[in-house]
């Protein structure tokens, strides 16, 4: 358990924006993951994804890491931001863009 926490900690701290999802950005395997990718694409920011379907340890571990029961999960600068519903609410309110800008992450040109 602590090993997987360390692995997740390394992933979220190494990547400014990382989405733990089912499937890949190109082929999301779940509607919620697909929606999360669509939001990140709209924002035009660089991001990494982790396909939890390829890693059972992370698939379970990520839920206790953030104390959040579902996937996808978005992390910005190592901090858990939320799942796809929160991403959508924040996106619509302009808060997600704000959070990313405030974190010093530039949009891709």
């Amino acid at each position, binding site marked *: 358990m602590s090993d997987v926490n360390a692995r997740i900690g390394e992933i979220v701290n190494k990547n400014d924006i990382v989405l733990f999802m089912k499937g890949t950005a190109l082929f999301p395997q779940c509607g919620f993951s697909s929606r999360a990718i669509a939001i990140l694409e709209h924002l035009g920011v660089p991001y990494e994804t982790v396909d939890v379907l390829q890693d059972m340890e992370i698939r379970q571990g990520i839920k206790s890491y953030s104390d*959040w*029961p579902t996937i996808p999960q978005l992390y910005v600068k190592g901090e858990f931001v*939320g799942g796809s*519903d*929160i991403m959508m*609410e*924040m996106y619509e309110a302009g808060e997600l863009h704000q959070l990313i800008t405030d974190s010093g992450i530039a949009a891709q040109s």
Partner: protein
Amino acid sequence: MAMPASEIENLIRAALPDADVQITDLAGDGDHYAAHVVSAAFAGKPRVAQHKMVYEALGGRMGGELHALQLTTAVPN
């Protein structure tokens, strides 16, 4: 693994008695829902905390028995 909308509503109301809960069955299959929960208990709490309160009310069913619940939360006006 379907779950009736009334059961979701009852679980949320049991934890948040003042809550106004609106459940929509998105696919008509009793398995894909949207819930909008309005409660004064959310006041001053960040969104993640608000959603966690609803997930806690659902007692671990989220992500298991209940696969698809689109959740939005708000504080009463």
